[in-house]
C-alpha cells in the first residue's frame, strides 16, 4: 500500500462514543425487525416465543409470490439493460479521443443521481400518461422496466468507469503491438479485465432497482406490485410478523448480492 498513515483513529477524542451511537442507530432497528420475524405471537411489538411459522406463511402467500415475480422480472431486465448501456457509455467516454460534448454527456448520465427521486417519479408518471393519452400506448410492466433502467444506469456506470480509468492503458497498447485488432484487444484484454467493474456495476444496479419505492409507487399500474410496494400496502393494515419475515428475506437477498459482488471484485483485483 501507500505510505503508512501516522494518525491512529483510536486517539481521536469521542471516536468510540460516536461510532457506537452510529452503529446502534443503524442496526438496532434492523435487528429488532429480524428478531420479531421469529415471534410466535401475531404482534410486531409484543414478544411471545420463537417460531419459523411466519416464514411458512410468507412462502405460501400468493400475493407475495406475485410481487416477488414482478420484482425479479423488473430488476433483472433493468440490471441487464442498464449495465450494457453503462458499459458502452464508459468505454465511449474513456477509450476514444476526447470529443465535443464529452463533459455534457457525463453530466447527463449522472444527472439522475442529483435530481430528487420524487421529481423523477412525477416526471416519469406524467410522461407515460402523456404517451398513453396521445398515442394510446401502454407498455404494461415495460413502463416500470424502462423507468428502472434509466435510473440504474448511473449506478452501473460509476464502478465500470472507475475500473476503466484504473486500468493500465499500456496493456491495450501491448495487445495492439502483438497484432490484436481493436476488437480483439477489447475482447481479449479490456473486457476480461473489466469484468469485476461490470459485476459490481450490475450488483449495484440490481440492488437499486430491487428496493426502489418512490418511482415504482407512482409508475406501477394495477397488477404491477413489487416487493417494496407489497410491504408498503401490508403495513397500512394491522401488521403481523409476516411482514418482518418478508423484509428479512429481502434484506438477505441484498446482503447476498453485495457480498458476492464484493468477493468477486476482490478476487479479480489481485
Amino acid at each position, binding site marked *: 500500500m501507500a505510505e503508512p498513515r501516522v494518525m491512529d483513529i483510536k486517539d481521536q477524542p469521542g471516536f468510540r462514543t460516536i461510532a457506537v451511537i452510529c452503529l446502534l442507530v443503524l442496526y438496532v432497528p434492523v435487528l429488532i425487525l429480524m428478531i420479531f420475524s421469529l415471534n410466535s405471537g401475531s404482534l410486531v411489538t409484543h414478544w411471545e416465543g420463537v417460531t419459523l411459522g411466519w416464514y411458512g406463511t410468507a412462502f405460501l402467500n400468493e400475493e407475495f409470490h406475485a410481487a416477488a415475480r414482478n420484482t425479479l422480472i423488473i430488476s433483472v431486465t433493468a440490471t441487464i439493460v442498464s449495465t450494457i448501456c453503462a458499459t458502452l457509455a464508459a468505454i465511449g467516454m474513456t477509450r476514444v479521443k476526447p470529443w465535443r460534448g464529452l463533459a455534457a454527456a457525463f453530466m447527463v448520465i449522472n444527472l439522475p443521481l442529483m435530481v430528487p427521486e420524487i421529481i423523477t417519479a412525477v416526471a416519469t408518471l406524467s410522461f407515460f400518461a402523456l404517451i398513453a393519452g396521445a398515442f394510446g400506448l401502454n407498455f404494461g410492466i415495460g413502463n416500470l422496466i424502462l423507468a428502472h433502467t434509466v435510473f440504474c444506469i448511473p449506478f452501473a456506470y460509476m464502478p465500470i468507469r472507475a475500473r476503466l480509468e484504473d486500468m*493500465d492503458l*499500456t*496493456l491495450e*497498447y*501491448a*495487445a*495492439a*503491438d*502483438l*497484432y*490484436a*485488432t*481493436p476488437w*480483439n*484487444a477489447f475482447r*481479449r*484484454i479490456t473486457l*476480461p*479485465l473489466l469484468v469485476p467493474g461490470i459485476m459490481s456495476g450490475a450488483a449495484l444496479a440490481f440492488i437499486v432497482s430491487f428496493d426502489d419505492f418512490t418511482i415504482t409507487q407512482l409508475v406501477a399500474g394495477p397488477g404491477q406490485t413489487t416487493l417494496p410496494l407489497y410491504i408498503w400496502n401490508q403495513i397500512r393494515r394491522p401488521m403481523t410478523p409476516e411482514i418482518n419475515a418478508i423484509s428479512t428475506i429481502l434484506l438477505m437477498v441484498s446482503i447476498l448480492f453485495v457480498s458476492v459482488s464484493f468477493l468477486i471484485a476482490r478476487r479479480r483485483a*489481485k
Partner: protein
Amino acid sequence: MGIAFENQVAAPQLPSRPAYGDNQTGTHLPERAGSLNGVIVPEQPGKNAIEVRGVRKVFGTGENQVAALDTVSVSIRENEFFTLLGPSGCGKTTLLRLIAGFDFPTAGEILLHRQDIAPLPPFKRPVNTVFQSYALFPHMTVAQNIGFGLEMLGKPKAEIEARVAQMLKLVKMEALKARRTSQISGGQQQRVALARALAPQPKVLLLDEPLSALDYKLRKEMQIELKRLQHETGITFIFVTHDQEEALTMSDRIAVMSAGKILQVGTPRDIYDRPAERFVADFIGETNFLPGTVVSKQAGVATVKFAGDATISAGYPEGFDPTGEVTLVVRPEHADLVPDPAKGTIAGTLANIVYFGTDTHYHVKLDGGGENFIVRHQNSRSSPVTFATGAKVGIQFEEDAARVLKD
C-alpha cells in the same frame, strides 16, 4: 600497472568496462556508415531494417505546440543492437512509439525494409515492443502471455505451443509457464515480456527502458542476457535508455539525442572517444572542459593555447571550423598526474581525492583558475605513486587526449 595508461595509447580501452565486450567485434556488419551531426547517409539502403526520414512529431496545437521530434533522420541496420540514448524529454521514447505505431508522425517517413509503415496501425507492423512497465496481461498465465501475439496472427495451435515452449526455454522460464504474471518476480516478468515480444519473430524489437525497474545486479545480468538474445535471434534491437553505461556496454551503434534532435550516431567507441558536440561529450561519461584560444590549425588538428601559456594539439570533428575562443574536451582517464608540477603540461593543487573501488578520481584546482580538472586513475595492487590532498601536482596529457568541440 603504474599511474600512466601506457597500454591504452596503443589500444585505447575504456577502464572498468565489463569484459564480455564482443559488441565491437561480434557484429556481422560491413564498414560503418558515415555519421556526423545526425545527418546519416544510408550507404546500403537494402540492408537497413528501419529508415527514419525527416520525421517530425509535434504535440499540442497553436501556441502550446511542442516539437518532440525535430526532423530526425536515422538508419538502423539489420541485426543491429541500436540504442537511442538521451536525457528524459529528448524524444527517444517518442521516436520508439512512432516506430511501434502508437503515435503517427506529423511529417516524414518511417521505412521498414523499404516499405513506408508510418500510416499503419500497430497491429499491422511486424515490430514488437518490450514496455518499460512490461505490460504483461494479468489475467493470463506466463505461457498464454507469450503465445498471445502468435494467436492474434492466427497461427495453428500446434505451432503456437511449439514456439511458446521454445521461447520459455530461451528465457529460462519453463518451470513457471503456468503461473500468473502477478505470481512471479520483477526479473522474471522482464523475461516473460521479452519472450512475448520475441515469440512472433518480429523484424525489429523495440525496447523502452526495459531494465530501469530492476536492481543493479539484475540489470547487469539482463544486459548480458539481452546481448545473448539479440545474438541468438538475429533480430534488430532498438533500445531506448538514458543510462550511458548501459548504452556503451550493449550497443553496436548509439544515437545520442537531445531536445528532439539526433546529435550523433556511431559506435560506442566513436561516441565516447570522438564526440561530435559538447553535449555528447558531457552526457556520455565524465569530461573536463577547458577554455582555450585557437592559435593555428591544419589537417583537422588545431593548436590551442589554454590555461595561461600551455599549448596542446587537439583534433576536431569534420565539418566544424574552430576559431578564436573554443572549449577543449579531455576525458579524465586520458590525463595523468605527475608529482613535479614543472613536468606537467599544466599545474595545480590537489583539492580532493575520491575513491571508487575500481579507480580513483583526483580533483585538481588549476593554477590558471576555472573549474577543477578531474584525473581518473585506475587502481591496481602495484600503484607506486600516492598523492595527498593539498599537494602541488602537474597534469600530463596523453597524445590525442584533447579535442575541440562545437558548443
